[in-house]
């Protein structure tokens, strides 16, 4: 019996039971749609994390002081003062894989201009900071190495700070502001970067020479962190190892001692966040897969009913010459047709759900082609798997018994 004939028979059976078939498909439709939507959400958030982190500078390496485990109680990271200007100098001199490096000191305070004021964070850095963070200036200019050396009282403002302390829209460059009562001259404004994935406003910053911040504001001689930029993204992991070695020998750590600092590349950060969102995606997909499985069981159930209901028809088909294999194929194709049609509708529903989520919930989504292919393949397999047993049962019926069945 030709495949086309079988397809025709299966198609007829489905069309004759439209409502029932649609209800049977519902499980598959919902299953496939949710798998696609969940994967799209997962992929979307992963991509958005990756792009945010990349925009922060994907070559970036940060060195922070570690915990102090010499005392009885561990202090929290960053509390200790193990990172010094001397460390910065040594890393700068010895490392071969870093293109830019800057010491970083930071502290909170109030930015005041005339009657307006705004709480912000001041970052003390050197001019290379802009290259490391991959950010430019929208007006004015960066301070120079000479200004760093002389601990000049000059600042670069982020857009959020500008908006709040110069609400009238006047050009802040050349104006004087005060940060914690110390007067600074504004010499530039940073390009707007907006919020990052973690909801942090990247424009709410004040940038000044690190010498100025160390001496005049914070009165400290250690560093909060050192930021650097690897020669390339690929060199970042090697650069991390290199910096770690330099710092270990500089801190005179024995082989059995833990690092008293931490060196992180953005790549690590990306993979940390990616793996978190990946876990979440797997979880969501697992839940969605269960509904796909339930959909499959629904098909099996309805195929059983269908075989039972059509016992007499099966008997007749056998009497007029249908072989067991013909009957098997007929019911199997019917099951596959139901699951594939359901799968197709599911793909459509899943894609529309994804568009809906993107448009109205503003969640980042990204539909991966593989998710469509996989869920569709799963559908076909579901049809074969759950359709096989009822179909096999139908094909094994005795024509005499089937014909007499009421």
């Amino acid at each position, binding site marked *: 019996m030709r495949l086309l004939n079988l397809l025709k028979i299966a198609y007829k059976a489905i069309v004759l039971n439209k409502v029932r078939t649609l209800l049977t498909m519902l499980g598959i439709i919902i299953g496939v749609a949710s798998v696609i939507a969940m994967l799209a959400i997962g992929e979307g958030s992963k991509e958005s994390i990756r792009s945010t982190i990349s925009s922060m500078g994907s070559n970036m390496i940060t060195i922070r002081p570690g915990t102090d485990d010499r005392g009885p109680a561990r202090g929290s990271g960053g509390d200790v003062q193990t990172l010094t200007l001397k460390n910065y100098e040594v890393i700068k001199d010895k490392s071969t894989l870093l293109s830019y490096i800057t010491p970083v000191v930071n502290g909170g305070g109030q930015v005041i201009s005339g009657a307006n004021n705004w709480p912000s964070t001041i970052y003390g850095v050197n001019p290379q900071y802009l290259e490391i963070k991959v950010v430019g200036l929208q007006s004015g200019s960066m301070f120079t190495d000479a200004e760093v050396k002389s601990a000049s009282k000059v600042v670069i403002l982020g857009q959020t700070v500008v908006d709040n302390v110069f609400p009238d829209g006047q050009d802040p460059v050349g104006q004087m502001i005060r940060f914690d009562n110390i007067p600074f001259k504004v010499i530039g404004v940073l390009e707007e970067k907006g919020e990052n994935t973690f909801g942090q406003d990247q424009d709410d910053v004040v940038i000044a020479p690190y010498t100025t911040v160390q001496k005049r504001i914070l009165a400290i001689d250690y560093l909060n962190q050192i930021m650097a930029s690897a020669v390339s993204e690929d060199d970042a992991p090697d650069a991390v190892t290199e910096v770690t070695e330099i710092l270990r020998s500089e801190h005179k750590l024995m082989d059995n001692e833990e690092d008293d600092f931490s060196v992180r590349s953005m790549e690590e950060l990306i993979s940390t966040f990616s793996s978190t969102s990946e876990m979440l995606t797997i979880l969501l997909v697992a839940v969605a897969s269960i509904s796909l499985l339930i959909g499959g069981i629904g098909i099996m159930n309805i195929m059983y009913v269908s075989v039972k209901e059509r016992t007499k028809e099966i008997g007749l088909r056998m009497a*007029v010459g*249908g072989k067991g294999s013909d009957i098997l194929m007929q019911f199997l194709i019917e099951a596959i047709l139901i699951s594939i049609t359901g799968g197709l509708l599911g793909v459509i529903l899943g894609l529309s759900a994804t568009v809906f989520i993107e448009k109205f919930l503003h969640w980042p989504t990204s539909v991966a082609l593989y998710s469509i292919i996989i869920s569709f393949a799963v559908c076909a397999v579901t049809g074969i798997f759950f359709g096989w047993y009822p179909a096999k049962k139908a094909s094994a019926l005795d024509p*005499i018994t089937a014909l007499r069945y009421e």
Partner: protein
Amino acid sequence: MSKEIIKIEDLKREFTMGTETVHALRGISFSIKEGEFVTIMGSSGSGKSTMLNILGCLDQPTSGTYEIDGVSMKDLSRNELATIRNEKIGFIFQSYNLLARTSAIENVELPLLYNSKVSTEERRERAIKALEMVGLGDRLDHTPSQLSGGQQQRVAIARSLVNNPVMILADEATGNLDTRTSYEIMSLFQELNKQGITITFVTHEPDIATFSSRTIVLKDGNIIQDYANNNVQSAADELAKLPKEQD
């Protein structure tokens, strides 16, 4: 001498019911020649249904030989039996067994669907021809629920004719019909028989037998009577004698 369509020799069929063995057929021999119209009669328990199943290649005998159109049934597989049924036998059932919500023409096409030698166009052509033969050429697209009992049985007869079988096998084909309609159906059978189609009609109604050319009577698994009917009644004449239908 016309050829033998059916040749049965010392046919036995036994069923095992628990520890008991039921002898449904106890050594039956007969043959049916091309162009005969045979009724097989018998009360329930006579072995009539078992005989029908074996004649229809739905069941196989325990012992003895059965040849249809020169092919021996012995040791044929399920699939080979299905092919024989498809190519050599036309079935007609008491309850018509039409596919519901399926048009007359599609119902008639059904046996040809299982014959890969027949193309789609040929299938349609032959189905239309068969329906015309039974007088339903104008009802090709009617579904069973839009047809009367008699018309449904005509569709079933068309279905049994469509594969050009060597024999039509009818199982109580008029059992569900009123007298008038069953005479109509019988006159159709007689007409088909006149065109040379071999018909075997299994029934327990004695008046049906009067329309056939030969009657075989079964009782307790044996043939007790096998006689030629010298005085074949015309179903069309009987139909005319019936009182006019009241409107």
